[in-house]
C-alpha cells in the first residue's frame, strides 16, 4: 500500500514539473511573439481633436506619459505634465514667475506645413509680390491650393465678417502672427495676438482663471500653460453647431446602472413640480 502511495506521489510530481515546463515554454513563445509584432502607437488628443494629438510612450517601465481613453481617444491622465514642453517666452504680467516655470507645448511643430509657407509661396518674391499687391478691400482672393491646405478658410467663422487673414497673420512672414505694431509673434505664443481683442480673457488666462494649466498648483509653481489655440480653433470659433465656444466631443461612458435596472429611463420622468 505504502509503495503505491510513493509511486503515485512520484508520478504526480513528474507530471507537475512537466506541466510547468510546458507552460513556461508557452509563455516564452507568447512573449517573443508580442515582442516581434510591432505595436501600433496609441495616439490621443488633449483638448482639441485633430490639433492637440499626443503619442503614448513609456517614460519609465509601466509609467506612460499619458493614458488614453479606449472609448473616445481622449487623454485621461498625465504621467508627466511637462513632457515635450519648452519655456513660454516673455509674457507681460508674468514677470514675477521664476525662470522656466511657465512652459508651453510648441504648436509650430504640429503645424506641418508652417515651415513651407514662408519659402514656397509667401516668400516675398515674384511678380505679384514686388511690390506686394494685397486686396485693398480686405477680402481674400480664393486660391484653391490654400483652401485645400486649410479647409477652415473657405468659411471663416471668426469676427463675423469684421476681420480678415492679415489682421492675425503677418503680411510678409507667413510663418508668424502679427501684433498691433506689425511685429511678428510666434505661433507658440498666440495669446499675444488674441489678447489684442480679447483683453478680458487674456487677463483671466494670465491669472489662471480662464484656460487650463497642468503641473504644480502653487501660484509660482512650474506649470504647463495651454495656449489659446490648443483649445479654440481660431478659424471657426463661432461655428453654429457648438455650445459655449467648444466643438462638440464624444462623452466618456456613463456610470454603472443600479443593480436590476435595465436602463436609465427613470431619470427622464420628472416628478411634478411643487
Amino acid at each position, binding site marked *: 500500500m505504502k509503495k503505491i502511495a510513493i509511486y503515485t506521489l512520484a508520478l504526480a510530481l513528474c507530471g507537475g514539473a512537466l506541466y510547468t515546463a510546458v507552460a513556461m515554454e508557452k509563455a516564452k513563445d507568447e512573449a517573443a511573439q508580442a515582442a516581434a509584432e510591432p505595436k501600433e502607437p496609441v495616439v490621443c488628443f488633449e483638448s482639441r481633436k485633430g490639433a492637440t494629438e499626443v503619442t503614448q510612450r513609456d517614460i519609465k517601465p509601466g509609467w506612460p506619459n499619458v493614458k488614453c481613453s479606449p472609448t473616445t481617444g481622449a487623454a485621461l491622465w498625465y504621467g508627466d505634465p511637462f513632457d515635450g514642453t519648452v519655456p513660454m517666452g516673455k509674457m507681460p504680467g508674468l514677470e514675477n514667475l521664476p525662470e522656466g516655470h511657465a512652459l508651453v507645448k510648441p504648436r509650430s511643430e504640429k503645424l506641418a506645413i508652417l515651415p513651407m509657407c514662408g519659402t514656397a509661396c509667401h516668400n516675398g518674391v515674384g511678380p505679384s509680390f514686388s511690390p506686394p499687391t494685397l486686396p485693398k478691400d480686405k477680402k481674400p482672393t480664393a486660391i484653391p491650393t490654400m483652401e485645400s491646405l486649410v479647409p477652415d478658410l473657405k468659411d471663416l467663422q471668426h469676427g463675423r465678417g469684421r476681420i480678415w487673414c492679415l489682421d492675425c497673420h503677418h503680411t510678409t512672414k507667413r510663418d508668424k502672427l502679427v501684433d498691433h505694431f506689425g511685429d511678428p509673434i510666434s505661433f507658440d505664443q498666440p495669446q499675444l495676438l488674441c489678447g489684442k481683442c480679447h483683453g478680458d480673457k487674456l487677463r483671466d488666462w494670465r491669472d489662471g*482663471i480662464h484656460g487650463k494649466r497642468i503641473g504644480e498648483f502653487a501660484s509660482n509653481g512650474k506649470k504647463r500653460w495651454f495656449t489659446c489655440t490648443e483649445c479654440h480653433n481660431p478659424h471657426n470659433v463661432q461655428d453654429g453647431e457648438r455650445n459655449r465656444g467648444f466643438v462638440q466631443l*464624444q462623452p*466618456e461612458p456613463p456610470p454603472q446602472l443600479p443593480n436590476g435596472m435595465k436602463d*436609465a429611463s427613470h431619470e427622464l420622468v420628472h416628478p411634478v413640480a*411643487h
Partner: protein
Amino acid sequence: MGYALNIRKCIGCRRCVHACVAENNQSRGTRPGEKIEWIQVLRMERGMFETEKLDHGYPEGLGIQVGGNAYTPAGQVLEGQFHYNPEAVPEKDATYMPIACMQCEKPPCVKVCPVRTTYREGDGPVVIDYNWCIGCRMCMGACPYWARRINVTTPVLPKAEMNPVTHYLGNRPRMRGVVEKCHWCLQRTRQGRYPACVEVCPVGARKFGNLLDPESEVSKILERKNVFRLKAELNTFPKFFYFYD
C-alpha cells in the same frame, strides 16, 4: 486648499470622472456594485418661459404661473440625468454640473461617523482611514452631496491598471466593505501637483489652489467672479466653489 468649478464652461464630457478612476484606484469591474466613480456629472435641462403656459401651474386654474415656468425645470434644480449618453456634448438644451465631495468645513459625514474614521485634515480635505471603517454607511446617508461610495463587493483592480503612487489616506487600494470618496488626490496635491480631474478637463473649467495665497487661481476667482456653494443653506461650508463668468 480650495477648488473652483466654472459651470458655464463644463461641457459634460465626463473626462474628469474617468481620470479620477485612473488616478485613484477605484474598483472597475462590470458586475453590480463593482464599478465605482467618485465624480458624478448631472445633466440638467434648460428651463424656458412659454407664453401658452402662462396660466398653468400650481394652484391649478388661478391663472398664475408659479415657479417661473410651469412644470418645466429652470436653473440649478439638481433634477436631471446622471446616465445621459448622447453622441456628442455639449447639447444645446442642457447644462452640466459635476458633483463630488465638497470637502466641507463642517462636514456632516464626520459628525455621524461612529468610529471617527473620517475626519478633516488641517489643509482642507476630509479623509477616511479605510482600516478603521466598519462600513455602516452612516456617512453616506449624512452627506447632502451624494459624494460617498461603498465597496459592497471585493474591489476589482487589474494589476496593470493600478496607480502605484499612493497615499495612506488617499488612493491606496481599498478593501471590501469600506466607504471611499474624493480626497482631492492627496497623493498629488501634497506633492504640489494639481488633482487628476483638473489636469484632464478639456475646457479648463476646474481650478485648484491655495486659499491662503492671494495670488492663487482659487483666490483670484473668489475675488473676481460670481461664486456660489452648493446647498449653502445647510451650513456645511464647502471648500468647493462653483462660479461662472
